């Protein structure tokens, strides 16, 4: 297991270096930030001074060396636009993003599990049809559209929920709901189909032959096996959650990292875009590693192969 974790960590470092290199060149392909920062009242001398101060007077090659060097020391640089260390800006916005994504993830996964099991154990009944209908609807409708419609209905027509911001618990309802919408349907369908497969298995039959009550058969014998497939795709859901955060924070004017990267991209604020991209990559890779470890926990066969 330790060996497995070390290998995965090394792989992650290589992946992060690759992402850092790619994002460096991609942001520069978006255009020159100086065009946006240039003030018509600036003198030629002031403009040149600004260029030097931002480090944009150097060639791409030189900029790249400085960037990678700083990165190696954990320095994410200074925002071109706001003139503040990027790390400080992230310290403000990351907790806001987590306040949105963590409850959404917890609610989404709990509901996916409960509804998936409900549908599978009551196959072809009203409950199952309901879950299937919800899942198809959830996967067919674009999340951003549903969010805007929800704002229209709950905040504009009925005025029972606030439109945007994050002041009170009521402010969390719509954005968290939107994020749940991004993760729930796919996971729910997966739990259902995986559970259906397992319920047909011989060991579930044997568990019933032993005389075990149905709740032990389902929650002990079936569920743990049924979780293996959804767990592998959990790693794929995390990037979806990041994307969901970008869209949700933009719609609800939520001061998190998602909105920050959108604003920074429009402003061609290279350092901010680079920093958030790299940080997101680190988080996604870290969660994937955790998923792999939990996978080994659920399935003993994997635990034994890897040790």
């Amino acid at each position: 297991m330790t060996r497995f974790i070390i290998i995965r960590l090394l792989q992650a470092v290589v992946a992060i270096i690759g992402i850092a290199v790619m994002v460096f060149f991609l942001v520069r392909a978006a255009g020159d930030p100086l065009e946006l920062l240039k003030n018509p009242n600036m003198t030629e001398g002031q403009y040149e001074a600004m260029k030097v101060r931002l480090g944009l007077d150097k060639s791409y090659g030189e900029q790249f060396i400085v960037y990678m060097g700083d990165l190696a020391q954990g320095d994410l640089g200074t925002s071109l636009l706001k003139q503040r260390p990027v790390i400080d800006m992230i310290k403000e916005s990351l907790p806001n993003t987590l306040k949105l994504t963590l409850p959404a993830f917890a609610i989404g996964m709990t509901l996916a599990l409960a509804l998936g099991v409900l549908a599978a154990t009551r196959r072809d009944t009203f409950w199952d049809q309901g879950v299937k209908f919800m899942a198809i609807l959830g996967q067919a409708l674009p999340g951003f559209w549903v969010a805007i419609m929800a704002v229209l209905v709950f905040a504009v027509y009925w005025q029972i929920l606030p439109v945007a911001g994050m002041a009170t618990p009521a402010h969390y309802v719509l954005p968290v709901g939107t994020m749940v919408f991004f993760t729930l349907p796919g996971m729910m369908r997966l739990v259902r189909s995986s559970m259906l497969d397992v319920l047909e298995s011989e060991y579930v039959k044997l568990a019933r032959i032993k005389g075990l009550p149905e709740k032990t058969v389902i929650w002990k014998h079936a569920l743990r096996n049924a979780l293996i497939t959804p767990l592998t795709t959990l790693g794929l859901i995390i990037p979806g959650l990041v994307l969901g955060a970008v869209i949700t924070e933009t719609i609800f004017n939520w001061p998190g990292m998602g909105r920050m990267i959108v604003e920074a991209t429009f402003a061609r604020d290279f350092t901010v875009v680079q920093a958030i991209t790299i940080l997101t990559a680190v988080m996604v890779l870290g969660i994937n590693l955790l998923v792999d470890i939990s996978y080994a926990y659920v399935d003993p066969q994997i635990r034994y192969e890897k040790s």
Partner: protein
Amino acid sequence: MSKILLQVEDLCTSFFTRAGEFKAVDGISFYVHEGETFGLVGESACGKTVTGLSILRLLPEPAGRIVGGKIILDGTNLMELSKKEMRAYRGKMISMILQDPMTSLNPVYTVGNQIGESVRLHQGLRDDKVEDEVISALRLLRIPAPEMRIRDYPFQMSGGMRQRVVGSIAMSCRPRLLIADEPTTALDATIQAQYIALFKDIQKQTDVAIIFITHDFGVVANICQRVAVMYAGKIVETAATSTIFKAPKHPYTSALIHSVPRLDRKDDRLYSIEGQPPSLLDLPPGCRFAPRCPDVQEICHKQQPPIVEISDGHSVSCWKVK
């Protein structure tokens, strides 16, 4: 002869699907003595397994249903028990061994956990006692070093060992009746012989009655005292094993016995019965074996033959026998 433990009377089990009603088991009757091994023989899809699952009342829901008959175990009609009462019988009074040891154990729990679960449920023991019972169940099936194996997962064991674990689970609460559904079919020939010898031994120790479901008359000869031959949902012949081999009366029984490969005969090719069993959706009005029967008469196609007891414990359902 010892007491009758299980009496099945006119059992009918059907599967209701969109295509119609499949009469998987259509009015069968038999009995099993205490401590006896009773063989239930027939080809695939003749209703053997469904009979076993019906006794446990564990048919795949909602399609499968027992539509008639009585299943009396030691004086209690299992059909009249509530779901909860029936659950208390499963694993404790009646157990079952499934065909494929590779899939019938749960891959994510240890062997000890899977056996201990039954013990805890039916015997209400404390944890430290549970482990002793688990080890004794493994020892009953002659699993070497049971103290070590209880912490193993199924994937760490061979097929033969896994089938012994399945046997340990079935025997852990010392049931009165064991339904063994082709327990040796998935094992190779040497392991098969060992497993059967093991069960003969266990039966001597525990006096458990066994319903041995198989398609293999060779296995029947080895372990069963009495045997019933099933064809398309009906029992066509019931007799003591020695009688069945010496004087089979139903043409289907003769054909089945004839199709067992033998080393002492020089046959060029294996004997096989012409044709296919009838569809359970569209059964012939007369004898179900008539379309494939070598001795078919006119009446066979029109009317179902009655079950006739021709001598003590030997009954046949065939127009040829009067």
